[in-house]
């Protein structure tokens, strides 16, 4: 509690915006979480209103109006608000959700222009690695990086995960980052052979070290894919019943070109 009091006193002097929301001079973790949830909820509502507006205009086919409406995207405004909020908790782990939001949402996904990372997103990423590398909360961010290659770029994601693996003091965070790095590489058609070998090693480490049964199961499946389901390898056989209950094998179709289609009627 003593530490919290000192920290909050610092915050209060640093962030006028926080004065209004900080009760009795103590910043509790739950206050930061409530602030984050409220801001994120507001963003999601604004964003969905924006998308609805775009959809409506697209139905109308009015190109000029569509182009004009693109400027109504609320992301830029919220980016500023998240940056301010993160600054209010600077140096504290309470800043982490805000910083993660900035990295996730502050990157512009426009493949035709190449990958654009906003200055805010890059700064947030640098801050996470500088100030929050020792946080136990970093695991969920590490997991998300597996799916952020499209906006941040695969190399930047891989480098970030490499830093987390090397520097995090928590085994759980390191393992989340290893799994994430392997998934990123598996989805990266430009990954080098060495990176693919690295992914095998990462998954084996996760399988050996993780105490979560479901994580081990997912990593085992991913390792199977990496080792057996690559282009150029003979497909593993499937032996199971068809929809009428009659057993058959994939290898029954050797000699034919086969399309395997994992499907469902939904």
């Amino acid at each position, binding site marked *: 509690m003593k530490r919290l009091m000192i920290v909050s006193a610092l915050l209060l002097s640093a962030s006028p915006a926080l004065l209004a929301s900080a009760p009795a001079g103590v910043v509790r973790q739950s206050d930061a979480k409530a602030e984050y949830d409220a801001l994120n909820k507001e963003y999601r509502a604004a964003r969905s209103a924006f998308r609805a507006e775009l959809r409506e205009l697209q139905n109308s086919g009015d190109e000029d109006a569509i182009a004009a409406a693109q400027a109504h995207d609320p992301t830029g405004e919220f980016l500023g608000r998240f940056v301010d909020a993160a600054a209010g908790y600077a140096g504290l782990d309470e800043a982490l959700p805000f910083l993660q939001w900035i990295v996730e949402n502050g990157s512009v996904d426009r493949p035709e222009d190449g990958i654009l990372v906003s200055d805010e997103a890059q700064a947030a990423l640098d801050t996470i690695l500088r100030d929050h590398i020792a946080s136990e909360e970093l695991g969920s961010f590490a997991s998300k990086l597996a799916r952020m290659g499209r906006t941040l770029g695969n190399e930047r994601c891989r480098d970030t995960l490499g830093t987390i693996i090397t520097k995090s003091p928590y085994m759980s965070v390191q393992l989340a980052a290893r799994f994430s790095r392997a998934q990123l590489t598996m989805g990266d058609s430009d990954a080098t052979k060495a990176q693919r070998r690295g992914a095998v090693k990462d998954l084996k480490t996760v399988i050996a070290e993780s105490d979560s049964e479901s994580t081990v199961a997912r990593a085992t499946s991913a390792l199977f*894919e990496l080792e057996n389901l690559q282009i150029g390898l003979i497909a593993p056989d499937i032996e199971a019943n*068809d*929809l009428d209950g009659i057993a*058959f094998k994939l290898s029954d179709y050797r000699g034919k*070109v086969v*399309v395997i289609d994992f499907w469902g009627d939904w």
Partner: protein
Amino acid sequence: MYPHERSLVKRLQNEPFALIGVNSDKDLEKLRPRMEEENITWRSFWNGPKGTGGPISAQWNVRGWPTIYVLDKQGVIRFKNVRGEAMDEAVDELLAE
């Protein structure tokens, strides 16, 4: 998906080609009338009562549906996740080998 797959199966009915499904519907009784309706004639493995959590998709690490693999006549994986025209071209290329 269905119309494209139907036309692919029909176009290649006299070629050494097979479309093999791995179906992840939990309830086959609900699926049967849908297969009639959509004229789904190709053979499928059943992924079992756990649906998308079934053993085949788990082993093959399938996380998105549909997931596509294209094998050549020797059973070698040659393409992954090709859709639409790209799937047709992949199959035609392998049939010509």
